C-alpha cells in the first residue's frame, strides 16, 4: 500500500508539473521555472494552442533567380502550387503534406525568428544602445544562418536544378509574403478587389555556388 501511495504521489506531481508548464507565460511561470522549465520543455515539449488564433493570411514563398551575365530573372512561387497539388491528391497526399510541412514550417520558423529579433531590436533602439541600420544588417545575417533559411535556400537550388538545367543562374533571392484573407464582413466581395498582400521578408541575392 505504501508503494502504491508513493507511485500515486509521483503521478500527481507529474500531472501538476505538466499542467503548470502548459500554462501561458505568467508571472509565476517566468519567475519560478528556472532550469527545471528548460529540462521539462526539452524532454516533455508540448504545445496545444491549435489554431488559437488561426492565421489570417496564406503564405507565399518566392524564389527569384538571377543570371549575372545578362541580368535575366526568373521567379517561382512554390507554396500555392503545392497546396493545389495537395488538394488534387486528396486523400493520398501524404508526400505533398510532408513537403508542405518542411517548407511552411521553415517559413513559420523565420517568421518567429524575426518576431523575436524585432522585439529585441526595438528594445535596444528604444534604449539607444544601437542604431537602426546596424541592427538590420545583423538581423539579416542572423536569419541567413538559421536552419530554416538554409532549408529554403537548399530547396531553391533543387528547383533550379529541376527546371532550367541548361541555364546557369548565379544567385537567388528568397521572399516571404502573405496574402491577407479578407475580413469575415467582406467575404462576399470580389476577392481581387479587396485582396491585400504583405511583404514579410526579403533576403538579398545569395550565390548559388
Amino acid at each position, binding site marked *: 500500500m505504501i508503494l502504491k501511495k508513493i507511485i500515486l504521489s509521483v503521478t500527481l506531481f507529474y500531472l501538476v508539473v505538466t499542467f503548470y508548464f502548459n500554462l501561458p507565460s505568467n508571472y509565476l511561470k517566468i519567475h519560478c521555472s528556472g532550469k527545471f522549465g528548460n529540462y521539462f520543455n526539452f524532454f516533455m515539449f508540448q504545445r496545444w494552442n491549435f489554431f488559437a488564433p488561426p492565421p489570417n493570411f496564406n503564405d507565399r514563398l518566392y524564389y527569384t533567380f538571377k543570371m549575372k551575365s545578362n541580368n535575366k530573372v526568373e521567379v517561382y512561387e512554390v507554396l500555392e502550387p503545392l497546396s493545389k497539388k495537395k488538394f488534387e491528391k486528396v486523400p493520398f497526399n501524404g508526400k505533398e503534406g510532408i513537403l508542405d510541412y518542411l517548407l511552411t514550417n521553415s517559413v513559420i520558423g523565420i517568421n518567429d525568428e524575426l518576431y523575436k529579433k524585432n522585439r529585441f531590436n526595438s528594445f535596444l533602439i528604444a534604449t539607444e544602445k544601437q542604431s537602426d541600420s546596424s541592427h538590420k544588417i545583423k538581423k539579416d545575417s542572423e536569419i541567413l544562418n538559421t*536552419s530554416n533559411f538554409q532549408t529554403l535556400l537548399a530547396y531553391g537550388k533543387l528547383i533550379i536544378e529541376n527546371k532550367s538545367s541548361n541555364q546557369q543562374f548565379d544567385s537567388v533571392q528568397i521572399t516571404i509574403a502573405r496574402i491577407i484573407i479578407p475580413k469575415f464582413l467582406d467575404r462576399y466581395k470580389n476577392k481581387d478587389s479587396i485582396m491585400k498582400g504583405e511583404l514579410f521578408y526579403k533576403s538579398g541575392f545569395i550565390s548559388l555556388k
Partner: protein
Amino acid sequence: MKKKINSWIGSLSESNHFEFYSSVFRIFICVYILASLYNYWDYFPIIFSGKSFYSAEPTYLLEIFGINSSVIRDHINLYIFVYVILVGLFALGIGRHYTAFLLFVFFEISQRLCYVVLNGGDNLLKFCLMYMIFIDSYKYFTIVKTNSRDRLDNNKGYFISNLAGYLICIHLCIVYFFSAFHKIHADVWYNGIATYYTLSLERFKGTPFNDSLARNGVFVTLSTYFVLLLEISYPYLIWNKKARPFIIFSAILMHAGIFFFMMIYGFQLVFIAIQGFFIPNQTWINYYNKISNKFLLFSKGKIKYSINSFL
C-alpha cells in the same frame, strides 16, 4: 479522504480497466507508425539523412549520451529497419513492456531527427507511447500466450497499468483544456468567426465546399462555438457517465470534420482513437464477443455451404 484514496487505490488494483481497448490501441499505434513511415518513404533521404535540402539540426537527446546524431543519419536505413522490427514485435506483443520502451525511444529519436514535419497528433502520441510502456495491453491480439508469471496479474501490476491508462485519458483532457484556454483568449474564437479563417487557409483546403461553408455565416458561427464549447466542457463532462456518450460522439464529429475539411489525417485519427479509453472495458468485451460470434457463425455457415456445394 484517506478512506476514499484507499478505496480508489483498491479499485485500481482489482482488475485491468483497459484490458481490451489498450490492446486495440497498441495495434493502432503500430499501424499509425507504419503508415507514417510509408508516407515518409520517398522523403527519407530528405528528412532523415542530413544530406538534402532540409537543413537538419542535432537531436540533442542522443548527444546527452555521447552519440552524435549524424551516426543515426548516416545509417538511417538500418535504423528504420530496426524501428520497423520493433513495431512488428510490439504489434504481436513480443517483448511486451521492454519492446514498448525501446519503441518509445526509437519514436522519440525519429521525431527529433526531423521535428518540422510533426503535428499535434505526433506530439500526443509520444506521451501515449510513454504511458503504454506501463500498460498491460497484451491480453488480446498477441501471438505469444500469456502465463501468470509473464503478465502483471498481481494487484500491483494492475495498479500501475490502470494508472497509466488513466494518464492517457487525463492527458487528453489537458490537451482540450489548454486548447480551449488559448482559444478563449483569441478574438476570432470569442466572436464566433474562427472557422471562417481555418476553412479559408489554402494549405488546409480539403474539399471543394470549404469556400462556400466559410462564407456561410450560420455554419461559421455554430461550428466555431461548437468547437469552443466542446473543448471547454470535455475535461469535466467526459467523466460523467450520462454525458460521456454525447461528448465522445461530439469529439469524434469535430475531429472527423477537421479530417475531411482540412486534410489533417494522422493528427485527427490519434485523437479519435484515444476516445476509446473512456469506454468501459466490459462494453468493449461485449462488442468484441458479439462480433467474434457473428464472424464464427458466418465462417461456419460458409464452410458448410462450400462443403454442400462441393458434394
